[in-house]
């Protein structure tokens, strides 16, 4: 992983875009792990169908990754003969196999390590010059350990020299020179940054894979901007601490994954009923129960949309690329604060734990702001839950004289007094629904690309693969349009109708065994045609080829 991170940095230095996902076994530390990297001269938002190069330092447990490391006969496998025979699953792919004596070459260098030989070799094969590599090594090692730096540079050079004689080069198109306006970010850190950009100053959370990095980021970044981070005793405490802080006027966030989201649903109901803003980033993993904690699926959709008890309108949004985790989380904070309700940001493992080289994100102006309250005139009572036309009621911040009220999860009157009358219940339900339905979400509700009489509707991390499939299909003469929903709930019927004008066939792409997204779309939207569903479980990422093949058969 260290070498892969350095490789990515060097590629960025050389001007390439990249997407780097990781896959590991169930071990806590060490053990078998694979670094999956894709490079290009344009931004990359998807994995590819197969890998061009597989470099194996050893074969420990590597068979387990066979499905995640698809190879073809055009692929190149580089391995150390001292590691033993190439496992049958990889031989069967027909890939070209070449030997590189990584261990021996490393031994010739004092302090040399095989992973540096590997790093130099791969870089050479795809055409990343030694310059950016040594630059990166310098940044991470030079100051701390001069001897390690020397050994690493020697290793990289030896690896590159050895690879030059291997044949089978997989050179990339030349990249533009390094652009100062590029970022390197993971989806989880991006979500944390987006939260702070949106105004979040409080986070209470409980660790859970694959959401923990959101918390790690916030734990270190929040105090710098005057915010507070607390490690709570569980998810019940997390969400409720957030509600307390939010009631006090601090925009608040927590992050979790499926099992934690289940524990939070009662608290989310309180946020809805008491109209207290709160944001939860759910980094989806494979479920049900503890499922597969380190891998991706999009199967928390049902609980996100329908998991709350009672009629509980709330916001559900979803980022559709690693970089978009920044924007969508920021937007989620803005929406939650503006609408005084809960907003779920449905990220997923493939977005959250992948590292990407992206164009610097725009600094957008979405900062959460609540509708401020004014103290009532002498003798009048303050109506915290006033039935306004927009459905949004002014919200005081404790400390403001004259606006004392009790925030309540019990149904209440406009003043907040508990009430069991049907008229109060209907009035408040209407109000809480109306504020969400009538809000202007602008064109952020979806990412829409291309034109055609087929529409591919998708969400989350499937978006990248769908985009690439649509592009490939276009080259084959099949015209399709990509619609990736960012605002999952509430629905936008008119916007969707506009986006689907002229569309004759629909393909819904998602990573869920039950087709949760397909069902959701069919249940909530008037679609012009019965959609075809390309829906399968995780943990293997959706590949462009699968979608491309479906588009070709639909285009016939």
């Amino acid at each position, binding site marked *: 992983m260290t070498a892969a991170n350095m490789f990515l940095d060097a590629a960025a230095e050389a001007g390439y875009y990249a997407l780097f996902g990781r896959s590991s076994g169930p071990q806590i530390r060490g053990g078998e792990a694979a670094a999956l990297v894709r490079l290009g001269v344009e931004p990359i938002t998807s994995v590819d169908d197969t890998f061009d190069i597989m470099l194996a330092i050893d074969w420990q447990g590597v068979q387990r990754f066979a499905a995640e490391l698809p190879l073809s006969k055009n692929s190149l496998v580089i391995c150390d003969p001292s590691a033993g025979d190439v496992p049958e699953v990889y031989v069967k792919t027909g890939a070209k196999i070449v030997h590189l004596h990584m261990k021996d070459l490393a031994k010739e260098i004092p302090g040399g390590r095989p992973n540096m030989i590997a790093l130099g070799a791969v870089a050479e094969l795809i055409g990343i010059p030694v310059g950016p590599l040594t630059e990166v090594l310098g940044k991470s090692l030079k100051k701390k350990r001069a001897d390690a730096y020397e050994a690493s540079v020697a290793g990289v050079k030896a690896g590159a020299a050895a690879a030059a004689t291997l044949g089978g080069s997989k050179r990339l198109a030349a990249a533009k020179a390094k652009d100062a306006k590029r970022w390197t970010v993971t989806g989880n850190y991006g979500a944390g940054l987006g939260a702070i950009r949106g105004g979040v100053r409080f986070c209470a959370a409980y660790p859970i894979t694959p959401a923990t990095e959101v918390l790690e980021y916030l734990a270190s970044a929040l105090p710098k901007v005057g915010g507070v981070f607390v490690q709570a005793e569980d998810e019940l405490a997390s969400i409720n601490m957030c509600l307390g802080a939010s009631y*006090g006027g601090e925009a608040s966030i927590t992050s979790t994954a499926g099992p934690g989201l289940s524990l939070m649903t009662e608290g989310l109901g309180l946020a809805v009923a008491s109209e207290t803003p709160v944001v939860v980033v759910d980094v989806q993993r494979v479920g049900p129960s503890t499922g597969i904690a380190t891998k991706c699926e999009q199967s928390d959709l049902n609980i996100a949309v329908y998991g709350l008890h009672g009629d509980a309108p709330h916001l559900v949004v979803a980022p559709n690329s690693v970089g978009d985790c920044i924007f969508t989380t920021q937007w989620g904070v803005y929406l939650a604060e503006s609408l005084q309700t809960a907003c779920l940001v449905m990220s997923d493992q493939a977005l959250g734990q992948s590292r990407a080289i992206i164009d610097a994100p725009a600094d957008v102006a979405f900062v959460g702001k609540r509708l401020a309250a004014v103290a009532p005139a002498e003798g009048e009572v303050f109506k915290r839950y006033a039935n306004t036309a927009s459905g949004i009621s002014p919200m005081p911040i404790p400390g403001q004289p004259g606006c*004392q009220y009790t925030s309540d999860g019990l149904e209440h009157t406009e003043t907040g007094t508990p009430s069991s009358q049907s008229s109060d219940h209907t009035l408040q339900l209407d109000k809480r629904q109306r504020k969400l339905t009538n809000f202007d979400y602008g064109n952020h509700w979806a990412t829409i690309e291309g034109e055609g009489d087929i529409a591919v509707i998708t969400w989350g991390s499937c978006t990248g693969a769908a985009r690439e499939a649509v592009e490939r299909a276009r080259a084959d003469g099949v015209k399709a349009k990509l619609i990736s929903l960012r605002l999952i709930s509430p629905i936008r019927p008119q916007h969707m109708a506009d986006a689907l004008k002229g569309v004759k066939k629909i393909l819904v792409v998602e990573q869920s065994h039950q087709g949760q997204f397909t069902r959701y779309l069919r249940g909530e939207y008037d679609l012009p045609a019965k959609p075809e569903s390309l829906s399968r479980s995780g943990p293997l990422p959706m590949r462009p080829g699968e979608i491309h093949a479906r588009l070709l058969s639909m285009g016939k």
Partner: protein
Amino acid sequence: MTSCESTATYTAKDFKSEVKPVWCPGCGDYAVLSSITKAFADLGLAPHQTSVVSGIGCSSRIPAYTNTYGIHSIHGRALAVGQGLKLGRPDLTVLVAGGDGDGFSIGGNHFLHACRRNVDITYIVMDNRVYGMTKGQPSPTTESDWDASAMAPPGGTGMTPFHPLAIALASGANFIARGFSGDPNGTAQIIAEAIKHPGFSFVAIMSPCITFREEQRDWKNTMRNVNIEPTTDPAQAARRLMTDDGFNCGILYRGDRPAYGKEKKATNAVSDLDREFTL
């Protein structure tokens, strides 16, 4: 304790709301409400600078009856809500209140961790050794042989009652006291001391449920004010609490652990954070 900027002085009445309590006539919780509002007034606090946070139960209805920034949250989560509020807004006086079922059963885990964490809030539990709101089931503090409930097996639950004060001590609580709703003035004094004490302070207030545990009317004869000097020695406090019969009122322990939470101070602009991601 939070300093009060306002020069106006408020009376206990200013801390009461217009909302009429749903409590049964004779419920001990009325007196607890009076003790809380009296303590706020005695401390010179202002309604807009105080907050009363609760969970769910008869006793947890209390925020609506106060004229403060109240939160009536969900069953068992009041301490989490209250700690979040205080950490987000250290300038407010935050009082968390509720019942024994709310605090020690569904909310038991939060109770342990609130004692450990030591956020500067005051937690009041109106202990009636029963679930009032759901009509008379045994709670964690119910005597093991109490079986006058549709949900308790004949002969009682057979479970050892929870000892909230001893558990609070073992979990690291910094201020431990017991009050009795039949002595509202004494209880108001204890609450005021608890609010003034830095860090987490825990006050169990014996508050009879005359509807489901009529025999608790007799508490006025059994509860006693011990008037002892609060110890700062946890070992002595432990002895005191382990030999306690549940009827001793007063401040039983005062620790000196510093309160949790750092001062909130921005050292960077939000745009500074971008640097970590730029190549």
